[in-house]
């Protein structure tokens, strides 16, 4: 890696998977035994990006888009089919000892702690594995468990914890050794609003305090919008957006929330706003309020038409949610 400020560099990264095609029924089962048919699926189709040290990047995409595959390659679990990934100056799949000491992967759907033992026992083992001096370890456990409100649960078996409590313990276990790069794969999956909020605050603080580079994948757009300044958007194995989360919201459209005084129909509004290519729907909360999505460049023209032709009680310009924007990008 030429620039020491760059933590992750990915060049033309591709990854394919070969799997057995299983047809339904007995015929399919017999065929699987005698003459299995293989299919190849391209999970990543030539991805390029760089991530600077200390960045908090959101990696988003629909199910099967290739997010987790990318994380697996970057963390060194699987090799790419072709192309190159360099993390902290190492080729991840070589899994050099020094590389493994500096990274961490948290998978929301997979536990790294031991089910039948209390978290404290697991942390103690991780302390030995990562060579953390005892005094530093003790201080860090106290600090992290305090921040996440789980100090009282340290001696409780992992399996007896709630999902949110377990996830907090998982995150503590993953960052106990202060990794320079952290991969978070849906860390808030299944968590209630409070637990997710607490975890987000904690991750944000950790990123700012320790300067760790963090890549986060999540289907929860609150995670992305509250934590990540930069977004990598993957669609069917291709990187279709790499940039500021804010700009992703600004680049296309905005939404007008218009409350009418007189009764109006969607068809009527649609006809009036044909020239600005508006898409109109009714606000679920009120019969007289409409949500009008228009190109950002046509805000003035839309206002002109609306005020000329209708009696308007109230109007507001709304930024579409990140979720909505991504939904639109995916539908394009």
């Amino acid at each position, binding site marked *: 890696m030429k620039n020491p400020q760059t933590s992750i560099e990915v060049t033309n990264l591709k990854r394919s*998977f070969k799997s057995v095609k299983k047809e339904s029924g007995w015929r399919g089962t017999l065929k699987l035994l005698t003459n299995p048919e293989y299919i190849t699926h391209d999970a990543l189709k030539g991805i390029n990006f760089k991530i600077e040290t200390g960045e908090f990047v959101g990696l988003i995409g629909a199910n099967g888009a290739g997010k*987790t595959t990318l*994380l*697996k390659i970057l*963390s*060194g*679990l*699987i*090799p790419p089919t072709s192309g190159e990934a360099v993390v902290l100056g190492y080729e991840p799949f070589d*899994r050099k*000892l020094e590389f*493994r*000491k500096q*990274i*961490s*992967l948290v*998978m929301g*759907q*997979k*536990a*790294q702690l*031991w089910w*039948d*033992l209390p978290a404290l*026992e*697991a942390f*103690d*083992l991780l*302390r*030995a*594995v*990562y*060579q953390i001096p005892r005094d530093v370890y003790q201080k860090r456990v106290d600090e992290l468990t305090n921040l996440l409100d789980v100090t009282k649960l340290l001696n409780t*078996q992992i399996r007896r914890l709630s999902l949110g409590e377990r996830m907090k313990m998982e995150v503590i276990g993953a960052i106990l050794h202060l990794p320079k790069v952290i991969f978070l*794969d849906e860390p808030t999956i299944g968590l209630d609003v409070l637990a997710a909020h607490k975890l987000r605050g904690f991750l944000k603080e950790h990123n700012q305090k320790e300067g760790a580079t963090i890549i986060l994948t999540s289907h929860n757009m609150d995670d992305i919008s509250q934590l990540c300044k930069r977004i990598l958007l993957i669609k069917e194995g291709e990187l279709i957006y790499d940039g500021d989360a804010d700009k992703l919201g600004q680049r296309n459209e905005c939404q007008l929330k218009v409350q009418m005084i007189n009764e109006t129909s969607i068809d009527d509004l649609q006809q009036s706003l044909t020239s600005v290519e508006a898409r109109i729907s009714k606000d679920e909360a009120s019969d007289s309020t409409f949500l009008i999505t228009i190109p950002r460049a046509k805000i003035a023209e839309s206002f002109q038409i609306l005020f000329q032709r209708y009696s308007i009680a109230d109007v507001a310009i709304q930024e579409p949610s990140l979720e909505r924007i991504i939904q639109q990008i995916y539908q394009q």
Partner: protein
Amino acid sequence: MNMIRIKWMMEWRLAAVRNGMKDALAYRWDFLIDFFTQAFVPVGIQLILWHSIFTQSGTTVFGGMKYTELLAYTWTSILFSQVRGGNYDFALIEMIRTGSLSQSLLRPVGPVEFVFWRGFGEKIFTAAFCLFLGLLASYFADRSVLNLLLAMMLAVLGNVIHYLFGATLAAVAFYWENAFAILLVKNMMVSLLSGEVMPLSVFPAKYSWIWESTPFYLYVYGPTQVALGKWSPEVWAHHMMIGFGWCIAFAILLKITWSRSIRQYQGIGG
């Protein structure tokens, strides 16, 4: 290699052993029931079998052993069959199949060795318990304590060989996704050829090369012979050397198979 590195290498292994022991004792009743049923049910079957053979056939010697010698063999072999029975190679295939190997792969310690030390933690507790029972029995039966200690060392070495062999076979799971059947077949072969089900002297002399050419006899048959005083310390030392040879051979094989097959790992389920 500097001292810090040596200290770390010792420390994480000891921590893994401690962790494994605590894991084994997390459910004490389950542990005790498992221990005693695994030990005594097969013994019960063997005792009934020996009794039937000697009373119904009228023979006084079976497989070169008298009835009392067979009884002594059976009771003594329990101690070592409990030590060899580590099934943590099954844990490895499960980790490969379900993708839970991922976390172990990313830690700065080898996953195969890490699983071994955790599993060893469980077994070392069993070995200590068996040793205690054996010492108690030695005291009352007037047998050599030294022999029992030497025998337990051989059994522990057998445990290591057993895991290295199982872990090597477990690499098949990278290709087939599941290698449960292979490990099951291996365990059946081990049961037969380790002397756990019956003394290996029962094998006809012309077929003894079969068990002699595997390391399995070092798991139960060998330690039992040492404990009963049938193998001298010199013979014990000779078989320990053979055991170390097997260890090295399997360790090399393990390294080759895992380094090649790990490329097939997909870390599914994430």
